[in-house]
């Protein structure tokens, strides 16, 4: 009986396009179900929550009572200096990480471009920070930076003569030669670059393999030096992948939570938007407010992406 139905369903239809149509929808159905349940439905819900008064204790009664619409969550978020600080921190954090991660990946990919003995092994070993589970990477970094027994502070005290240990993970600003720098934020950025640069390296290396050497050889024969060849011939061909990586890295870092939460728990001026969403939800038990923070975060991200798309379109037009 079941096989009969199945055979009818899967049997050979008349034309290829009919067959593709039906098979395509059947094969995509489970994926679509997952996306509707785990993304589209939640997206609708987050908008509703953001515009209503709802707290964690209200969950059991959810759906039985009419929604209590209000703009209160947005008013409170936008009127809160902590929100704007978190937004600024997030933008700085994501931009610095993006520049560092893609820049470092580019330098590494170019340095490893020429074949040598053991290149495969070196490439594989450079990926270790990316493969490391975030919890392991964090534990190791916390140990290195520990004020008491961490290797950096121990070295500073015993060899460089520091008077006291530096709290790398809880110092909002410190002065270096009279210039204030956000120390902990920079540490977190360095951590994020450390774990993500290998992925940029991987992508740029893959793209480099598709760059034909013939143009460079011709340029070299015409007397161009290495820097000129890299700057004028290789880099323009990498532009596409570099822009793509910048975009992805910015999007990913903009919403990253675990790295910062595990390293600093938001201390030392590292309260980013993702941490705010979490605190509103868990510590303050305020679903509506957490949803509003999350929604505002998405609005900022999507507007930045829109600007990026418009700018890159215009550039193409000019060319």
């Amino acid at each position, binding site marked *: 009986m079941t096989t009969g139905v199945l*055979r009818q369903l899967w049997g*050979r239809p008349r034309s290829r396009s009919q067959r*593709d149509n039906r*098979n*395509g*929808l059947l094969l*995509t159905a*489970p*994926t*679509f179900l*997952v*996306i509707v*349940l*785990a*993304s589209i439905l*939640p*997206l609708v*819900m*987050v908008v509703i929550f953001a515009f209503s008064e709802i707290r964690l204790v209200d*969950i059991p009664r959810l759906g039985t009572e009419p929604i209590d619409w209000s703009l209160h969550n947005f008013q409170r978020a936008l009127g809160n200096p902590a929100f704007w600080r978190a937004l600024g921190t997030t933008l700085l954090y994501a931009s610095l990480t993006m520049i560092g991660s893609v820049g470092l990946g580019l*330098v*590494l990919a170019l*340095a490893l471009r*020429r074949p040598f003995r053991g290149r495969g092994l070196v490439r*594989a070993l450079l*990926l*270790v920070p990316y493969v490391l589970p975030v*919890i*392991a990477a964090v*534990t*190791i970094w*916390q*140990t290195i930076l*520990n004020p*008491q*027994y*961490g*290797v950096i502070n*121990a070295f500073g005290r*015993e060899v460089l003569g520091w008077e006291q240990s530096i709290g790398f993970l809880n110092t909002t600003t410190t002065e270096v030669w009279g210039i204030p720098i956000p120390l902990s934020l920079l540490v977190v950025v360095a951590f994020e670059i*450390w774990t993500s640069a290998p992925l940029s390296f991987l992508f*740029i290396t893959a*793209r480099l393999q598709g760059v034909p050497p013939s143009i460079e050889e011709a340029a070299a024969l015409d*007397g161009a030096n*290495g820097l000129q060849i890299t700057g004028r011939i290789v880099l323009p061909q990498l532009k596409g*992948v570099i822009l793509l990586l910048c975009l*992805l890295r910015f*999007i990913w870092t903009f*919403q990253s*939570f*675990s790295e910062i*939460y595990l390293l600093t728990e938001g201390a030392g001026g590292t309260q980013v938007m*993702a941490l705010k*969403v979490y605190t509103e*939800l*868990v510590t303050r038990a305020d*679903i509506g407010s957490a*949803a509003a923070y999350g929604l505002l*975060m*998405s609005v900022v991200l999507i507007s930045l992406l829109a600007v990026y798309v418009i700018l890159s379109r215009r550039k193409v037009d000019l060319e």
Partner: protein
Amino acid sequence: MTRRRSALRPHPLSTAGRVAIIVLALIFALGPVLYGFVLSLRPYTSIVQAPLDLIPTWDELDFSGYTTAMLDPAQGGFGLGRFVINSLLVAACTVVLSIIVSILGAYAAARLRYRGRGFVNGTILGVYLFPGIVLSVPLFVLLAKAGLTGSLIGLFLVYVATTVPVAIYMLRNYFQALPESVEEAAIMDGASLPQMLRSVVLPIALPGVVATAIYVFMIAWNEYFYALLFLVQDRELWTAPLGISQLTDFNVPVTVLLAGSLAVTAPVVVLFFVAQRYLVEGLTAGAEK
């Protein structure tokens, strides 16, 4: 007479710079991991007394950090073994369901020209790029309402949802690289689509499928945020990353934390290097055009 340097051979200075970059990069990439490993083999007291003596002496070599981390609290340990089993369970189930769903979806995306294809592919990409942290709020509410936030099943469902888009992206790249003629021949010979998928496509695409499965496993194995959000109240259900992070607050000696972290790291690093070639191919296929 001095021979002119070949135009194609790099300047010695640039070679020196390149070597310097590679050496520095290796030190920065591996140094911290080696440091963590070395410390995990020393007793805590000697680390505090001599933090700069990096190489442990022969008689202070101490593997008790690993056993202490893994053993149950009843046996004087910190119970990481139990958390590892939880993690394995969730990650393995995630791999199975996520890969089944993704094979079907990815094959449709790679090969079939069905109506609504652009819409489906666009939605998958949009979901992949959308800030996941925003969706965590309603997902938490939905699963709490269903009574699943305090269970590994809730975590498993979320992991399937978050891994399907990336698994589809990778599998699609592998499927697109397969020779289409074999599939057409199988259909001509009267094979139905499921038969063809099982006995023609999957065997050829197996390395790619395994690589994707490993990648999905790594995501589920490493995930921390949802584990924290759902399970922090229930020690019995902690996953390995959540367990280690919670132990930090319990005044556990750093040697035990490092030992636990590295024990959790070993399987993913090994898996990654086993499948490295295929993984790199699948992840970067978009970059090579």
